[in-house]
C-alpha cells in the first residue's frame, strides 16, 4: 500500500509541478501585483488597495465590467436558445449513423484560425460586406446598416462560436438519456410535447448548464472578438486589461482587473456548481 501511494505521487508529480509552478505561482504573482502600484516608470511594492479603488470609482472600468456582463449574458442566452433545438434535432430526428458526421460538419468551420475567422466576420458584417450587400440588393433596406464595430457584431460573432460549444454539450447530455425514459413517458399517455417538458428537458439540463458555464468563462475573458469585430467604440473588460498592459504599461492595474475577471468566474462557478455534475441515470 505504501509503495503504491508513493508511485501514485510520483506519476502525478509532473502534473502537479506544472499546475503548481507554472500556473498557481504566476496566478499568485498576479494577485500580488494587484496590490502594488505603478508610480512613474517603476513599481511601488507597498501593498495598497489603490487599484481596486480606481476600478470601483473610475467609470471607464465600471462601464467595461457592466458591458462585459451584458454582452456575455446575452451571448449565453442566445447561444443556448439557438443550440438547444439544433442539438435536439441531431440527437433525436437524425438517424444515428449520420449524427457524428453532422456534428463534425458543425465543428469543422472552427478549425479555421480564430483571428482570421474574426476578421471574416468583420468583412461579412461590414458596410460593404456580404450581409449588407444582400440586404441592399434585395431591396430590403436602402442604406447599409452598421453591424460591424458594434456590440451587435460582437454578439453575433460570439454566438456563432458558442452555439457550436453549447450544441455539443447539450447533444451529449441528450444522448445520455436512455431511450426507454421517453418511451415510458409516451407509453403512459404523454404527448411528444409533454414528454419533452416533463422528461427530456429536465434530464438534459446538466448539458445546458455546462455549455452555459463554458460559454461564460470563455467569452468573458475573450479579447479577440470584441477587439476585431466589436471595434474600439465600446470596450469590454479584456480590452481594458490589454490597454493597461500595452498602451499604459500599468501592470498592477491590469493585474487588479484580471483579479476582478477571475472573481467573476469564481462567482458564476459557485452559483452553477451543483448543476454542473452530470447526473448518471441508474
Amino acid at each position, binding site marked *: 500500500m505504501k509503495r*503504491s*501511494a508513493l508511485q*501514485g505521487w*510520483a*506519476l*502525478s508529480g*509532473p*502534473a*502537479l509541478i*506544472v*499546475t*503548481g509552478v*507554472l*500556473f498557481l*505561482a*504566476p*496566478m499568485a*504573482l*498576479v494577485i500580488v501585483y494587484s496590490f502594488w502600484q505603478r508610480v512613474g516608470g517603476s513599481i511601488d511594492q507597498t501593498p495598497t488597495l489603490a487599484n481596486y479603488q480606481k476600478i470601483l470609482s473610475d467609470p471607464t472600468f465600471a462601464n467595461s465590467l457592466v458591458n462585459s456582463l451584458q454582452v456575455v449574458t446575452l451571448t449565453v442566452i442566445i447561444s443556448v436558445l*439557438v443550440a438547444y*433545438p*439544433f442539438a435536439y*434535432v*441531431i440527437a433525436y*430526428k437524425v438517424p444515428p449513423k449520420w449524427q457524428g458526421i*453532422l456534428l463534425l*460538419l*458543425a465543428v*469543422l*468551420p472552427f*478549425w*479555421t*484560425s*480564430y*483571428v*482570421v*475567422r474574426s*476578421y*471574416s466576420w*468583420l*468583412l*461579412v458584417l461590414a458596410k460593404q*460586406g*456580404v450581409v449588407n*450587400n444582400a440586404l441592399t440588393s434585395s431591396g430590403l433596406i436602402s442604406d447599409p446598416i452598421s453591424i460591424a464595430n458594434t456590440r451587435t457584431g460582437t454578439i453575433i460573432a460570439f454566438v*456563432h462560436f458558442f*452555439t*457550436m460549444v453549447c450544441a455539443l454539450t447539450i447533444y451529449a447530455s441528450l444522448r445520455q438519456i436512455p431511450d426507454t425514459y421517453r418511451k415510458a413517458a409516451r407509453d403512459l399517455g404523454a404527448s411528444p410535447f409533454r414528454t419533452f417538458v416533463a422528461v427530456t428537458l429536465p434530464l438534459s439540463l446538466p448539458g445546458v448548464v455546462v455549455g452555459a458555464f463554458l460559454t461564460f*468563462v*470563455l467569452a468573458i*475573458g*475573450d479579447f479577440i472578438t470584441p477587439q476585431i469585430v466589436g471595434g474600439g467604440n465600446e470596450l469590454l473588460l*479584456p480590452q481594458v*486589461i490589454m490597454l493597461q*498592459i500595452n498602451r499604459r504599461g500599468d*501592470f498592477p492595474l*491590469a*493585474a487588479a482587473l*484580471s483579479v476582478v475577471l477571475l472573481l467573476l*468566474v469564481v462567482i458564476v462557478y459557485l452559483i452553477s456548481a451543483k448543476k454542473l455534475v452530470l447526473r448518471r441515470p441508474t
Partner: protein
Amino acid sequence: MRSRWIRGLIPALYLLLIYSFILLPVAVLMLFSFQASALPVPPFNGPSLRWYQELFADDRMISALWHSMIIGVISALIATIIGFLAAYALTRFRPRGSQILRGLIMSPLGVSYLVIGFGLSISANQLALGKSLWMVIVGHVVVNMPLAFAIIMSQIKEEDISYEKAARDLGASEFMVISRVVIPILSPGLLAAFLLSFTLSWDEFIISLFLTRFDVTLPVEIWSALRTGLNPQTNAAGTLVFVISVVVLVSAYAFTRRRKGASR
C-alpha cells in the same frame, strides 16, 4: 401520415438555417482567398491564386507556420503525457486527497487565457527570462494539460483494471504494465487528447502574443499582418490553416482505422 412528413420538415429547415449561419463566415473566408483584386469584399472578381503565391513567398508567415506546428506537436505531446500519468495515478493508486488533486489539476480551465498569458509574462519578467517560443510551449502545456487529463480520465474505466491485474499476475513490471497494457487500451483517448491539445495550441493567440517577441506563431503573425489593413493574403492563410487542420485530423482518423484493422 401527412402530418408526420411536415414534422420532419421543420427540424430539417432549422438545421439548414443554423448550418448556413455556421458555415457563412468560413465560406466567405475561403471564397475571398481566391479574390483577384486587393480587398476581400464583394464583388468577387474571378478565382486567382495570387494571394496564395504571396503567402508562400512571405517568409515571416511561413516561418510562423512552422513555429506553430512545432510548438503544437511538442506542447501537445508534453500535455498528453503528463495528463495521462496524472490520470492513471489518480485512478489506479488513489492517493489520499485525490479529489483535491483533481480539482487542482483542472483549475487552469476556469481561468481566461488572457490572465494566464499575463501571469506567465510577468513571472518571466521577474525571473529575467526573455520572451521566446519556448515560453509559448510552457504556456500551452499549462492550458492543455488539464484538458488532456480530463479526456483521459473520462476514458479510464474500472473494468480495464482486470487487464492490468492479469499482466502483473503474469510477471510484468509496472513499466511493462503501463506500456504494454494501459497505453494500448487507452490509445483512442490518448490520441483524442493529443489532437485536441494540438488543435488548441495551433490556433492559440493571446498567450502566444504575451510570450513572443520576434519569433512568433501563426495566429500572432496573422494578427500583425492584419493591423496594417485587410488583404486576402490572410484569407489564404486562414484557409491554409483550415486545410492543414482537416488533413491532420483525417489522416489521424485513417491511421487509427488501419491500426484497428491490423490488430484484428
